[in-house]
């Protein structure tokens, strides 16, 4: 391969691997925004909790990689359900006025509590593992660690299962119905309380899963959730809020865009470049890249 196509291949490869996990995060965020109208700024903290869960199950209780990751998913699912029942449910009961802004601040509070709670519980130490599955795979002249390949596959399989769940099961259809028309859904007998709890917990599960998968790349640390949060918001804005399916493309796209900017302009400027591009896109397509019917428009 010549130099240019090497570069291109490099960008595509790393961008896709990176984007797969952004997609996983973004799908969860998008789900909660689409169904519950909550701009969740504590999403990164569930990612962090997922990493801790799998760290402890993997190193202390010596579970295998897969079961550690699955346990992390279950753990964050339960925590998410608890958070919904104890925090968002009471708020919804009290008032739905200015709901988006109120929940936004509520999630900000949750994020502060979780970060500092994690720090008090587990200290400031980085808790990581070297690899779940040692070894690497070579494609052309590129090497990719097994963990990354596995991580990407798990992410894709999860998204696929999730898609099937949303489209083929009654519960999933109910969730989609609520995201399109809450009153309508409740009239035809969908139990909103159950749907809301389930949705939030599922979203947390996806974030936790991402954290668990990435444990060998980024070790567990109380404040590790901030970056992934930025990134998943990026994706969401780009593809249009509440457009769950498009978050997958969006994740991959942002991954590619960032890798490209990283290669061309260096790490410091990558945020500036990718932001500039996203702003340009939004000026011309205010409903996001993959606008479709029913997507909440960003424009008024």
């Amino acid at each position, binding site marked *: 391969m010549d130099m240019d196509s090497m570069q291109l291949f490099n960008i595509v490869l790393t961008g896709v691997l990176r984007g797969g996990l952004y997609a996983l995060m973004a799908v969860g965020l998008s789900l909660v925004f689409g169904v519950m109208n909550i701009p969740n700024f504590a999403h990164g903290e569930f990612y962090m909790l997922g990493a801790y869960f799998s760290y402890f199950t993997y190193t202390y209780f010596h579970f295998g990689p897969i079961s550690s990751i699955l346990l992390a998913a279950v753990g964050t699912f339960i925590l998410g359900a608890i958070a919904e029942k104890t925090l968002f449910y009471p708020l919804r009961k009290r008032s739905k*006025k*200015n709901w988006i802004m*109120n929940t936004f601040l509520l999630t900000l*509070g949750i994020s502060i509590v979780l970060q500092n709670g994690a720090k008090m519980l587990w200290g400031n130490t980085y808790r990581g593992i070297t690899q779940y599955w040692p070894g690497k795979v070579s494609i052309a002249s590129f090497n990719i660690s097994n963990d990354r390949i596995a991580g990407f596959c798990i992410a894709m399989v999860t998204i696929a299962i999730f898609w099937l769940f949303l489209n083929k099961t009654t519960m999933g259809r109910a969730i989609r119905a609520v995201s399109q028309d809450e009153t309508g859904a409740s009239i035809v007998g969908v139990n909103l309380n159950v749907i809301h709890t389930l949705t939030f917990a599922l979203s947390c599960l996806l974030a936790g899963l991402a954290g668990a998968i990435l444990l060998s790349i980024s070790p567990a640390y109380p404040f590790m959730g901030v970056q992934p949060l930025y990134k998943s918001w990026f994706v969401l804005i780009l593809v249009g809020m509440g457009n769950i399916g498009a978050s997958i493309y969006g994740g991959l796209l942002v991954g590619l865009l960032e890798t490209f900017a990283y290669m061309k302009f260096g790490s410091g*400027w990558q945020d*500036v470049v990718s*932001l500039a591009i996203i702003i340009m896109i939004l000026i011309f397509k205010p409903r996001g890249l993959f606008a479709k019917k029913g997507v909440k428009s960003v424009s008024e």
Partner: protein
Amino acid sequence: MEKAESSLTKGGRFIGKFGFTPLSIAMLFVLAIFPLVLQDEVITRLLISALMLGALAMAFDFTAGFININNFGYAAFWGVGAYTSALLAVKLGISPWLGMLAGGILAGLLGLGLGFLTLRLAGIFASCMTWFVALAMFAVTANWVELTRGTSGLSVPPLFNTTGNIGYFYTILIMTVLTYVGLKVIIKSHIGTAFRAIGQDLQAAQASGINVTKYKIMNFTISCAIAGVLGGFYAHFVGIITPTVMNTSHTVEVMVLSFVGGRGTIWGGLIAGLVMIPSMEYLKGLMELRLLIYGVLMIVVMIFFPSGLAGLYYKVVQLIRKNASLTKGKKEEKDVRRAGL
């Protein structure tokens, strides 16, 4: 709240025009002489911080509480003001006082530009866009090493060449009062009516002939300009600035103040600043627990007291009035109803 003023004397009505009540004048007076009486540099310094953040919270509320847009990149405008003033002083030797003004102007212009870009977007999207732009501004500041010295930080000459903090205190006190009066006067004018109309019902505002985008941008620009001036003050007060002034955490700090204080009141943010900043300082020994409390407080406020300290205050006023009316006999119901909001 306006009702309370209408029954006042002529003098009362005059100060009311600038958003004051006798109570707030008295509080302001106490605050103004506080450092002179106490003669404690640390408390003075703390008050400076509290006032500065309080003023920022007021200007933040001017946007969040009125046109209902959370400027999630607010700290970046503060930072722009800080860097402008600092760079003018360091590179060109321009007086910090002019620098602060320049900082305000530049931050205002940036706000204007960003407003054009983002304010067509609805609520949370506009917030996110301002946030992303702020992240980009942070990255530019950190990476433009030739100009800003990047993350090494920029040493800034002080505003006063004395060792005490009293000069800074009165400067920020005057700036805070001016911010408050300025914002209050705008709010009470027709322009303010337009802001409130936009914040409360966008469609109706537009149908009634309000150019929504124009007023949103106007509001945004004013709010950002104030942040710029305060940023200039901060730079000369603290003596060194790094790109971290633009951190989202600073925006969150200001936002929490304005929300805990009570949205749409202007003064709520200042009161919250004066209560919370000292409390946080005195709780410092608790370390993470303090931040945990902070988070819990936010959650509790959001679920149970969404109208914040101001809401609490109005409830108290309402209660007092009610008690008074019980002794006096029956009073009009609507009075009570109004005080609640």
